[in-house]
């Protein structure tokens, strides 16, 4: 009877894994749809911007050949490792920011600049992450071998385990949001903050604004351009989410196969 109980338990686990896989697949297709929609809208807003500003105002001539990434994707484990390395005084493995800051940091110096989404699309390169067993999933923004890798945990566990990806940090520029409705102006004064702190905050905001890729195309960016940036940011989020879901699906599929094998051997 105990053998039957074991079989039933294994069957139940297999069913649960299959359910989980189907749920993840549904999430995957929904996120893929979101990605397609946001990319489509992003490019259409770029076309609208070109319509109002002129075709050559939104072109490769407006951006520098070497660009600095304003956001990176890291895993929680990388952040913890980077923290440890910082406290021990050792250099990071290169998967995080070059100046040793923890996890995703803004406005750090890049190696060779990752090409923008538009340039990659034109060249026809596919930057979708290709997970491998125990290997690493690269974010779609980086070239192979570059930093900002998302490492994958070992998948020896059978039970359900979700790997947490660190929410991607990004610039807090409000002007990247919204289309026709105006964005907020920077606060010209902050009550209750001493002047040094206030100046430092202002300098930080000005620095972040300068690093905003929106400024490559227009010092006073029109609402259509801001909308396109917003949609492309959404699409980057969607890509990272897709990578996460895909690695989870692979993990569940591996667990399913292992459970099947163990059942056969038993």
């Amino acid at each position, binding site marked *: 009877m105990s053998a039957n109980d074991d079989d039933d338990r294994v069957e139940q686990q297999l069913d649960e894994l299959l359910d989980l896989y189907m749920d993840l697949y549904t999430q995957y297709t929904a996120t893929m749809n979101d990605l397609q929609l946001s990319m*489509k*809208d992003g*490019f*259409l*807003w770029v*076309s*609208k911007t*070109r*319509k*109002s500003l*002129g*075709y*050559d*105002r939104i*072109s490769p*001539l*407006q*951006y*520098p*050949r070497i660009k600095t990434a304003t956001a990176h994707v890291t895993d929680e484990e990388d952040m913890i490792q980077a923290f440890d390395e910082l406290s021990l005084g050792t250099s990071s493995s290169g998967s995080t920011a070059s100046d040793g800051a923890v996890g995703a940091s803004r406005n750090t110096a890049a190696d060779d600049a990752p090409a923008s989404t538009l340039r990659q699309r034109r060249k026809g390169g596919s930057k979708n992450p290709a997970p491998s067993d125990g290997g690493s999933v690269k974010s779609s923004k980086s070239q192979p071998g570059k930093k900002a890798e998302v490492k994958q945990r070992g998948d020896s566990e059978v039970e359900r385990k979700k790997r947490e990806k660190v929410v991607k940090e990004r610039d807090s*520029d*409000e*002007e990247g949001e919204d*289309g*026709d*409705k*105006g*964005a*907020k*102006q*920077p606060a010209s004064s902050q009550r209750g903050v001493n002047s040094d702190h206030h100046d430092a905050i202002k300098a930080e905001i*000005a620095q972040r*604004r*300068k690093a905003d890729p929106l*400024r*490559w195309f*227009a*010092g*006073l*960016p*029109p*609402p*259509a351009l801001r*909308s396109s940036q917003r949609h492309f940011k959404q699409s980057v989020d969607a890509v990272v989410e897709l990578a996460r879901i895909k690695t989870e699906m692979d993990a569940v599929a591996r667990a399913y196969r292992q459970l099947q094998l163990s059942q056969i051997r038993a």
Partner: protein
Amino acid sequence: MAEMTFNMDDGYFEGLVRGFKGGLLTRGDYANLSQCETLEDLKLHLATTQYGNFLSNEPSPLAVSTIDAKLKERMVSEFQHLRKQAVQPLAKFLDYISYGYMIDNIILLITGILHERDVAELIPKCHPLGVFPELKTLSIANTTEELYNSVLVDTPLAPYFLECVTRQDLDELNIEIIRNTLYRAYIEDFYKFCKSIGGATEDVMCEILAFEADRRAFNITINSFGTELTKEDRMKLYPRVGRLYPAGLKMLADCSDYEEVVRVAEYYAEYRPMFDTGAATPGEKTLEDKFFEYEAKLNIKAFMQQFQYGVFYAFVKLKEQEGRNIVWISECIAQKNKSKIDNYVNLID
């Protein structure tokens, strides 16, 4: 009296430009273009219009940037045909039309040089109407003062540049401020010139330029939200020849968000309907689209009067709008996103 003497020097050119205007694409032409599935189809349909085989020598696959460049080339060749034969004061009027493009080219080059692009790479991207001999020497300037002293002092834009010389650092925001300052000086000067010509030219052109000034004021205000441009600096960029001057400009300068701009526009009957609804999706009409529609209406109206120079300006702007329409349709076809393909400004029924 102008009606009696206009044709002596300028009648031929008015006839020419009215002929060019007759070749603008109609609603039916745009409907045909919207049905195209590929850019090759679009090329075939354009061959049946006044554009003819202007794309026949272009290699496949056709790119939207190529279509844009060839459309500009066609417009410029028609303009140059007029300019080369025109006498004063029409010649000066046509030169004024080209100054706007010169400003755009200067800014394009400065931006490209700032991003470490080679001048040889940038020059072909300049608008052909705004090319002048000193343009190639722009790379030697690192500050606005050098730009003025070394490059622009002998060009027609020199008087417009005097207000910009105080801007030392050429960063993105300052470049935008320089662009808008130059444009303000240009529009105000052009307005003054049209007033000096007087008659029907003054009536037609001053209305068009006033709208252009107001449009720029609205766009500068809305685009400056969320940037480091202060309200005082913003006020200095507004051209002072539109209907908004002076009270409307003062109110616009004090605006902090889009809703306040809408409240300012409500005081002006022609601008109120444009701000009624904003565009939430790229397929809906944005404020810029409504501005383009209104501008097209003014330019078509310019052809209702004879013996005045406004027809030349209106022709150039209508050709530009036609180019924008064709490029928009091409982009929708190239992106296989034809749901928004009808979002163009129809010029001729």
